[in-house]
Structure formats: structure tokens, C-alpha cells
């Protein structure tokens, strides 16, 4: 029982980071209806921003943390400007967006390889390594912090989307971009904002991944997990992305804990296809029928 609880807690911690990535990705999807494959690159660079702010400029951890997230937000906006806006203005089919995103992801990853180098970097210790003991359960301080920060970020996002006027504009644009534009919403601004939010969350996730594991140019590959999580929950649905991420995190840790860590990813992928077969719109997604 204790071991099960332990695994659950680890799973929720890793799942909450997936949630940050998946929400950023899903938010962009809800507005633009395409998979932003450059999201992984932003997460990876966010991790590097955090690393260098901590080691080179010796900023205090909270400052470095926010700084890295803001830099990632800026980066995401730049990616949108360079790689997607020209396509958007032309009403290009979604295929072109995805390919452009792949190009951006490739560029970011290899740019880091070429400039910083392919070596692994380790974050300086911010929190004491010793875990907190609650009865038979050990919880890493980092895991608790990750969970709290993720929860706070998601709560702030929900508050922003539901309670503020700009948030309402984002929702309206997600619902129907053309109608929103006709109602006087500046959809260009909304799109920039959504990329900035997605980038910010990506930066937060990147720093936390860097702290938990290491920093390296290919770490953007971890976003495959957030794609899976977002698809689990239903593309474009934020609650779905969060539920899917937590579920994926818990399932993964349970599989590696009780079965085999080698088969962990394989089972995630199988589960992904199974979900798509039985609920093609994901767990919380809305069924959309193409209209003639």
C-alpha cells in the first residue's frame, strides 16, 4: 500500500509537469487548430535559459525561474511571428503549419547543439536533496515544489481565462476565430498572447524538468508525452489536457514501478492508440462533424 501511494505521488508530480506542457500545447491548438511541434524546442530552451540565469548571472532561484519563463514566452512569440504568421495571413492549410513547426523545432534543437553543444548539463542544487518522510512514504522536496508550482500556474491560467475580459476573448477566439474577429476582438493579439502563455508554461516546465533530470538539446522530445496527454484528454480541451497528463504520469510511474520501465513508453503509445480507437475525440473532447 505504501509503495502504491509512493508511486501515485511520483506519478502526480511528473504528471503535473506534463500538464503544464500539454496545456500550453492544447491552448495553441484550440486557437490555431494545428499541432505546434515547436513546443518541445521552447521547453528545451526554457530549461537552458533557467540554467544559465542560475549559473552565469547567479540570480536567485525565483528570479531565474520567472526570467526563464518570460524568455521562453518571448521565444514562442518569435517562433509564431517567423514561422506561422506568414502562413496564417495566407490561410495556408494546416499541413503547412505542421511542417513549418517541424522546421522550427529542428532549427531550435540543432541551433543549441551547434552553439552550446550536445553535452548534458546539470542544474545547481536549489533544494536540499533529502526527502520529506511522512510515515513510510518519502516525498522529494523537488517533487512537492514541482506539483505546487504547476498547480499554481494552472490555477492562474484558469482564473485568467474565466474571469478576465482578455481571457474571455481568448475563449471566444478558440470557439470561432472568424466570429470573434467580427465581434471586434483583435485576434492577432489573442494569438500572440496565447503563444506567450504557452511559451511561459513551457519555460516553467522546462526549468522543472531540468531540475529533476538534466538539460540537453534533445530534451524537447519529452513533448511527445504532452501530445499524447493532450490527445488522451481531447485536443484543444484544457481540462482534458490536465486530466490526460495526470493520468499519463500516474500510469507511467505505476508501469515502471510494478512492471518494467522498458515497456513504459510502449504501453503509453498503445494506450494512446486505444483511446483514439474508442474515443477518437479524446476523453473530454467534443465530437466535431465536418459540415458540407
Amino acid at each position: 500500500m505504501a509503495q502504491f501511494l509512493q508511486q501515485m505521488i511520483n506519478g502526480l508530480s511528473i504528471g503535473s509537469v506534463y500538464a503544464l506542457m500539454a496545456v500550453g500545447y492544447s491552448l495553441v491548438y484550440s486557437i490555431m487548430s494545428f499541432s505546434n511541434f515547436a513546443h518541445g524546442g521552447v521547453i528545451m530552451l526554457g530549461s537552458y535559459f533557467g540554467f544559465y540565469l542560475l549559473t552565469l548571472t547567479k540570480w536567485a532561484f525565483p528570479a531565474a525561474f520567472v526570467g526563464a519563463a518570460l524568455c521562453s514566452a518571448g521565444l514562442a512569440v518569435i517562433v509564431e511571428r517567423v514561422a506561422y504568421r506568414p502562413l496564417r495571413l495566407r490561410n495556408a492549410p494546416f499541413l503547412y503549419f505542421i511542417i513549418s513547426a517541424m522546421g522550427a523545432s529542428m532549427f531550435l534543437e540543432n541551433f543549441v547543439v551547434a552553439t552550446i553543444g550536445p553535452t548534458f548539463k546539470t542544474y545547481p542544487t536549489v533544494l536540499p536533496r533529502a526527502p520529506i518522510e511522512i510515515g513510510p512514504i518519502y516525498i522529494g522536496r523537488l517533487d512537492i515544489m514541482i506539483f505546487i508550482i504547476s498547480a499554481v500556474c494552472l490555477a492562474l491560467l484558469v482564473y485568467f481565462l474565466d474571469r478576465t475580459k482578455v481571457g474571455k476573448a481568448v475563449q471566444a477566439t478558440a470557439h470561432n476565430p472568424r466570429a470573434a474577429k467580427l465581434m471586434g476582438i483583435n485576434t492577432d493579439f489573442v494569438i500572440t498572447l496565447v503563444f506567450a502563455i504557452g511559451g511561459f508554461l513551457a519555460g516553467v516546465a522546462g526549468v522543472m524538468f531540468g531540475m529533476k533530470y538534466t538539460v540537453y538539446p534533445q530534451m524537447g522530445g519529452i513533448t511527445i508525452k504532452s501530445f499524447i496527454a493532450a490527445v488522451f484528454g481531447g485536443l484543444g480541451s484544457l481540462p482534458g489536457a490536465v486530466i490526460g497528463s495526470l493520468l499519463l504520469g500516474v500510469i507511467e510511474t505505476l508501469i515502471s514501478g510494478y512492471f518494467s520501465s522498458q515497456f513504459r513508453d510502449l504501453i503509453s503509445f498503445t494506450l494512446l492508440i486505444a483511446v483514439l480507437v474508442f474515443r477518437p475525440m479524446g476523453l473530454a473532447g467534443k465530437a466535431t462533424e465536418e459540415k458540407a
Partner: protein
Amino acid sequence: MNWFYIKGILMLAGMNLMAVLGLSLLTGFTGLFSFGHAGFMALGAYAAAWAGVRMGLPFLVALLAGGLFAGLVSLPIGRLTLNLKGDYFCIATLGFGEAIRLILDNVQTFGGARGWPGIPIRTDLWNVALICVAATWFMVRLVNSRHGRNMIAVREEELAAKTVGIDTFKYKMLSLFVSAVYAGIAGGMMGYYTGFLQPKMFGMAKSTELTIIVIFGGIGSVSGSVLGSILLTALPEILRTFAIWRLVVYGAAVIFIMISRPEGLMGGKEITLDAIRRLARPRKASAGAGTRAGAEGREVQP
């Protein structure tokens, strides 16, 4: 630049061409975007190596077996995923490709993640060239047939295609099957070229590379895929001296192509014998607007 080196590049280009042709049918002509084609290559590679090494089948038969095996696996996959819309299909194929790689990583009879050495070297320039010419010929025939046009209809507007009575699911399935067979044969040739197979060779990077070549060549153009494969296999070799920056330039080039010339190298046009003849006699072609329109009618617009 000795002949041996050039021959190696040409063979690599040929193997890429094989896989790209298949993907070109799926992405370029049917409008389905796959992120898992390296998975089909892996299936073909391992099946062909198994047929040749363990069962002692001759090289060409083993290749065919590899292709057919990849094709057979594509049928249940297609059944499950082809009804998914847009991005859901992309992510499902991505999951599938990675799943194949992870399974192969754990199958110990094929060496698992450490790889499978000792496959006899059978691929040479002549059989690669022969297979590529045959494959290109078949693809051109297919694309210009009724079936090919139905696939294009699915790409252009699936709902409309359905309305005029095209069994869209069947054509998506056919397209996936043919492209999987092509990818399988390409993978098989690769195994018999390097003499060594490792699941890592068929990761997402390979799938992405194939898609980029298709896009670079131009969506909906067989000759574009051919040109794209040759150019994009040779280009990294030419850029070998700045090895690291190569992929940076590559990524930037992909974005640049998408925002400036999304129709790719060929822009949905084909290099046909007619077109070459017209180029050879430019005056007559520009005067006779009627013949040009006639020729363009057969070209495929993306």
C-alpha cells in the same frame, strides 16, 4: 571525390527515394500526414533481413517479403487510425512509429537495442537503380490512374469526394498500404546496404526527414520527390565540412520554404517527356498556347 564515395551517396539517395516515393503518395497525393513511416521502414528492414538470413531466401525475394510484411502491418493500423481527423492521425502515426521502435528495442532475437550485425551486403548500385526505376514507373502509373485521381480527390476535399461516390476510406487504405510497402522495401535495402540493423536507425528523425523531402520536392509531384531525394541526400554530404550547422540550416530552410514557396521544388508539376520536348523547342511551345494548356491539364495541382 572517388567513385566509391559517389556510388555510396547515389545508393543512399536511391533508398531514400524509395521511402519518399511511398510517403509522397500518402502525404502528397492523399493528404495524410504520417510521422511514423520510419516504423514501416524498420518493419521491412527486419522482415527482409529475417527472410534472407534466417530463411535463406534470395535477396530480391527477401526485399519483397519485407515490403509485403510492412504493407500487411499497415492494414490493421490503417483500419484503426485512418478515420481520425488531421492532427489526431498525425499523433497516432507518431505513436505507432515509436511503438515499433520500442518493440524492436526489446526483441532479443534481433539483437534488441544493441542491433543486429552480420547481414550480408547485397545492395549495390545496379539493383538499387533497377528497383528505383521500377518503383518510380509504378508510382507514375498509379498516380495517373483512376485510383490516383481518387486519392487526389480525397486530399482536395474528402467530404466532396465521398459525395461523388468515392470510397474514401478504401483509397486512404490503399494509399497507406502502397506507401508502407515502399517504405518496407527501402528499409530492407538499407539493412542489406549497411549490413547492420538497429532500431535507433528508424526513429522519429528518419520519419521527419522523409516528410521534409516530400515537402521540399513539392506536394503532389512524383518527379519532385525524385529530385528532392537526390538533392537532399547529396546536400548534407556537400555541407559535410560544417557538419553541426547543417541541420540548423536545414531547419531554417524548411520554414523558409513553407513561408515563401510552400508548393516545393516542383510545385505540383511533373517533369514529363512532353515538358522536356517543349523545353527543347521553346519557340513553338510559347506560340502554341493550346498545346500547353493541354499538357497542363494532366498536371496535378496541390
